[in-house]
């Protein structure tokens, strides 16, 4: 029986290690400049986890699609659309409306990929621009309300027993996904199709249904994240999702999910999301110029993957 350390798969181990590294570097910086070490303070870490839960939610959904060997580039405006719909409708129905918007976009993506067989990479890209167009008409034409409802605010910024509510939301949805992946046929089919869609199809799997379901899950996660983000800023606004697409993909991949599908764990994605949020935060605090940020950001992703690659090689 291997010790639990060995049981954690490589990517997660390395990512965790890197997270610690980032925090240490950050603290050294502040220690030198301010004489404090705020990055280990629980309230900073909780705050980061709160922010991470937005990215984490999106990455969770993205991972489900990536497991199929597909990708969803429509996330940024799915998220924005959900947030704007929610705030425009307002009241008790707000969140439901937002999620419905997500559901519809997910269905469109799924149908496009499953029935028209357009590569997801390009179809979702198109859907993204279409939704953006719709939102511009929405804002420009109808001057909708954009204030988030109290419950959205609470979910995004509230605390339960000193722990951010957003974290609970993330945990709950993450839990559902983990359950789906490990215990239900749907999960098994996802991995199977990610490895070989034809073989799954010829085994009598309803591959179209799975495809659509996956894209719907992804869009729903994005929509939920949008609703939380609206709660976080107390409002929905144009382009609020633009900065979440690439980090989400990066989080999934840094978490050890194979971008070609068929292999990956949600635990990894969670760690990946936290890593990225922390990295961004520390760099921002260090007042690193944009140029430096971009370079570090890119180097980290490649570095991690190269390390994983070596690890895989050693194993085999």
């Amino acid at each position, binding site marked *: 029986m291997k010790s639990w350390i060995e049981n954690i798969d490589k990517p997660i181990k390395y990512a965790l290690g890197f997270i610690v590294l980032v925090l240490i570097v950050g603290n050294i910086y502040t220690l030198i400049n301010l004489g404090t070490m705020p990055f280990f303070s629980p309230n900073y870490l909780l705050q980061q986890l709160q922010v991470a839960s937005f990215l984490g939610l999106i990455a969770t959904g993205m991972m489900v699609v990536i497991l199929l060997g597909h990708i969803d580039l429509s996330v940024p405006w799915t998220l924005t659309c959900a947030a704007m719909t929610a705030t425009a409708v307002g009241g008790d129905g707000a969140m439901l409306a937002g999620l419905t918007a997500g559901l519809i976009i997910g269905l469109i993506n799924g149908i496009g990929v499953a029935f028209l067989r357009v590569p997801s990479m390009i179809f979702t890209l198109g859907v993204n621009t279409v939704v953006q167009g719709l939102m511009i008409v929405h804002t420009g034409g109808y001057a909708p309300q954009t204030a988030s409802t109290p419950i959205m605010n609470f979910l995004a910024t509230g605390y339960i027993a000193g722990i951010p509510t957003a974290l609970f939301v993330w945990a709950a949805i993450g839990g559902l996904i983990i359950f789906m992946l490990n215990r*239900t*046929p749907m999960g098994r089919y996802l991995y199977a199709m990610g490895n070989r869609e*034809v*073989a799954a199809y010829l085994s009598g799997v309803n591959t179209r249904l799975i495809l659509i379901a996956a894209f719907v899950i992804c869009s729903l996660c994005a929509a939920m994240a949008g609703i939380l983000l609206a709660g976080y800023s107390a409002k929905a606004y144009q382009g609020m999702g633009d900065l979440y697409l690439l980090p989400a993909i990066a989080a999934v991949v840094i978490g050890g999910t194979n971008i070609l599908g068929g292999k990956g764990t949600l635990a990894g994605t969670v760690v990946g999301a936290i890593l990225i949020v922390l990295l961004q935060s520390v760099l921002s605090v260090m007042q690193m110029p944009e140029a430096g940020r971009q370079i570090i950001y890119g180097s980290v992703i490649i570095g991690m993957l190269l390390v994983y690659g070596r690890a895989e090689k050693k194993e085999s």
Partner: protein
Amino acid sequence: MVEQVAHKRADDSDLILQLEGISKRYGGVKALSQVDFSCKKGSIHAILGENGAGKSTLIKIISGVVQPTEGTLKVAGQVQQFASPTQASEYGVVCIFQELSLIPDLSVADNICITDPPRNRFGLIDKAEQIRVATDLLARVNCADVNPRELVKNLPLSRRQMVEIAKALGRKPKLLILDEATSALSAADVEKVYEILRGLREEGLTMLYISHRMHEIEELADRLSVFRNGEHIETFDKGARSNDEIIEMMIGREYSSVFPPKPTHDDKLLTVLEVENLSWDGRLNNVSLTLGEGEIIGLGGLDGQGQHEILLALFGVLRGYEGKIKLHGKEVAMGSPKQAKSDGSIALIPEDRKTEGLMLPMSIQDNISIATLDQLTKGLIIDKSAEAAKIAEMIEKMSIKIGNVDDAVATLSGGNQQKVVIAKWLMTGAKIVLLDDPTRGIDVGTKQELYQLFRDLADSGHSIILYSTDYDELIGCCDRVSIFYQGEIIRELTGDEINETNIVAASLNMEISGQQAGTMP
């Protein structure tokens, strides 16, 4: 062993290839251990062995695809270490691999001249010259009818294999290796290959020939080497050993007749499946057949005459077919494999197990249970214990040789992979089993087990449709055989009519005098 010593002494000048103490490990698996092996110039040298005996590995080492863990390799007396197939081919060692090495999206000509095409004075590929070269080579393998401009992906499998051979010849080999190069070919095509290979032998070319079809080897080989569990058992001239001896060497145990006895059906079989005037896309024309409970019917004929399509149609893969498919007398519109599975309790063992039958990187157990998950699900949740139990049962029943059920199915050898596919379907409790050339690339021992299995299934009330490119199987296994020709069934053979002459004759649509030619359907 006497033999071995004997040919060690033979002087090395006429040996084009010598292996000494070659071993190969894949992680834990020992694919080859301490192999000494050599082969004479200008001979056709057959290599036999069960699945996983190490044949392909041997080939891969000789042709530089993988490097041996230990041992030395001599070509024409010179010690060589090939780092890649390219390097090997520079020394005249050219290989036709078990997995085809053609590029589907390139033209036949491009493929034939893929490695070093004719160049024009700018050093660019000379398309016209390339066409010419390709045309010549195609003619040389009697495939003048193939248009060198055609994309490979538009060719039927049998044609592709000929192109593969043409391509190999284009590289002016001294030692040509064919790893189950004929496994997809039907009798007629194989004949062509024989002629070509014999011709090449006249030209002084040496050939290593791997096949699981005994009669091919008898026809072709001068010398035979038998491998088992990664070891070189013995090498001898053709005729020095009887078939049964050879087969026993391969499987390492007593060996009885390959095919289980056929029961004599009283002709009142309860019909489970009826096909009436099925037509599709010009490739199936008014095909009608009936399948009785406990019956094994065979589909014969040259490759690509519609046998593959009829199976797909029955499994709900083909869109817009005309005609009727009736299950237990009830007509059903087959729309998807899922429907075929659930409504018809039909199973299909697909033609290409690696791409259509298996998720190679996934574990053996995941592959076996994938088709049965819906049955194994309580509420939303997969009942893992029940799953494990059933899988263990299937592995036991099919006697699949595995290390651990968690291992990737990719690490199994051909035969065992095929067993996994079949196990997957039997686990669903399918009643009608469609077999699409199920024994391609599978060794005699395993074949025998499978034939027995098919018969047992039939006796236990399953009904089987078996398409095979190897007519021995049709003869040995089937209660009835329908011969396809250009999308139609042109002959139906039953009982004693099922014999080599009739099948070959019918396949080529030749009239043969007398009743024995079988009855028109």
